[in-house]
């Protein structure tokens, strides 16, 4: 687990203990269920943001309006290996999945997206050997806001041949 995640986990302990003293009488565990869920989801979001580049805006960690790393400042580049590289657009039926992969570029989403892209272009590019997906984010220089692309994931999916 990332050190910052551990630090936050420890930070929440005294706060929750303080509130346990002031909890209403009755079924105390019920009173703390929603906030416990909030803390677990938020810590998991921080963990995912540091390990698999989950966008800080997403995932329930309350990182919205804190960074430019989200939405329009992330994008995908998709290349078909046929066998040379041939760049293609995200097919319209796969846009929803592409948005998810952009926000959370985990192996699971990138693998699923690659497989579906390979299926989509299978008839057009019969010699396809693989699908490469790159996830990029735009960063801005603090002084003059000069934008610069930085690749955060480079994923290669090999097409299995029958």
């Amino acid at each position, binding site marked *: 687990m990332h050190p910052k995640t551990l630090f936050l986990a420890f930070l929440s302990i005294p706060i929750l203990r303080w509130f346990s003293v002031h909890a209403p009488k009755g079924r105390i565990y019920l009173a703390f269920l929603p906030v416990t869920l909030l803390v677990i989801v938020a810590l998991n979001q921080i963990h995912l943001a540091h390990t698999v580049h989950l966008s800080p805006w997403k995932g*329930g960690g309350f990182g919205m309006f*804190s960074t430019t790393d989200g939405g329009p400042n992330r994008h995908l580049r998709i290349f078909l290996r046929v066998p040379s590289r041939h760049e293609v657009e995200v097919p319209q039926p796969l846009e929803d999945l592409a948005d998810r992969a952009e926000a959370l570029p985990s192996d699971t989403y990138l693998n699923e997206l690659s497989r579906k892209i390979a299926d989509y272009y299978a008839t057009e590019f019969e010699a396809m050997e693989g699908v490469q997906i790159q996830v990029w984010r735009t960063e801005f220089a603090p002084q003059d806001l000069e934008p610069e692309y930085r690749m955060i994931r480079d994923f290669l999916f090999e097409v299995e041949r029958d």
Partner: protein
Amino acid sequence: MIEWARKVLAGLGQMLAGLDVIDLAIRLSLLDLLYRPVGPWYIRPFILLLAGLGVFSSEVRRSALTWLLLAFLTGWRVVADWPMSDNHAYLLCYWCLAIFCSRLSGNFRASLALNARLLIGMAFLFAIVWKVFLSPDYLDGTFFRVTFLTDERFTGMSRLIGGMSEKAIQESASYLEPLLDGAELFDPPRLMESSGLIRFAFAATWWTLLMEAAVAICFLGLGGPWLFTQRHLMLLAFCSTTYAFAPVAGFGWLLMAMGIAQCEAKCKTIKNLYLACFFLILFYREIPWATLLADWLNG
């Protein structure tokens, strides 16, 4: 006319005085669900039906089952949309769950008030943690400088307060979108950022940070008893200013409902201020006041 206004105000005063804070908090939560329906098409009708019935029927809104179903449906929405849901979708789910749990707790009012405090406090604490410790580009003002130039929802503000023209905003937005593979245009766009916009971004950065920190400290009781008693004013100040700029009315309405849930019955003024702020956020959402004002000022 004056007589009519007097009657309306008297009637409004009577109606507000008769509203129970917890019932009001729950009704506003249901209105939030109605005003800003959430979820994919196969979830939305059930949420709308339950919320609509709850607004009109006290039996429905007092039933624990209603809130269990709403917690389930709003949670389902978060799972179905993973990871694309906005943060207030999570908070909405926690709040529905909090109402359900409080119904079962044996001490509904105290449990709901505690949940509201904890949820607001922890949500703001995590927002502060992201802005101060985890984000690489918030404290230096980069986030708001970029957002004011690229997010169309803030264009009115950039013109009104930042003194930017529409053309300058468009050219700056093009500058902030570089071409792929290092390609360059013959006549590349330039950053046309006014000093007013830089000052506005700096003010927005620190105002948001300080207000969110104040809300977290007050609601979590980390700043002593006096600050704890000021928590309502902090939340009202945050919502009445932030949601004039931030296009996330659903979050604001939810915070208002959660704020009211903590009011004591005798705090009529605070309750009324929360209610007024709820409708102020509705005004902010429905009227593009910044754009209209900027258009008017620029002739």
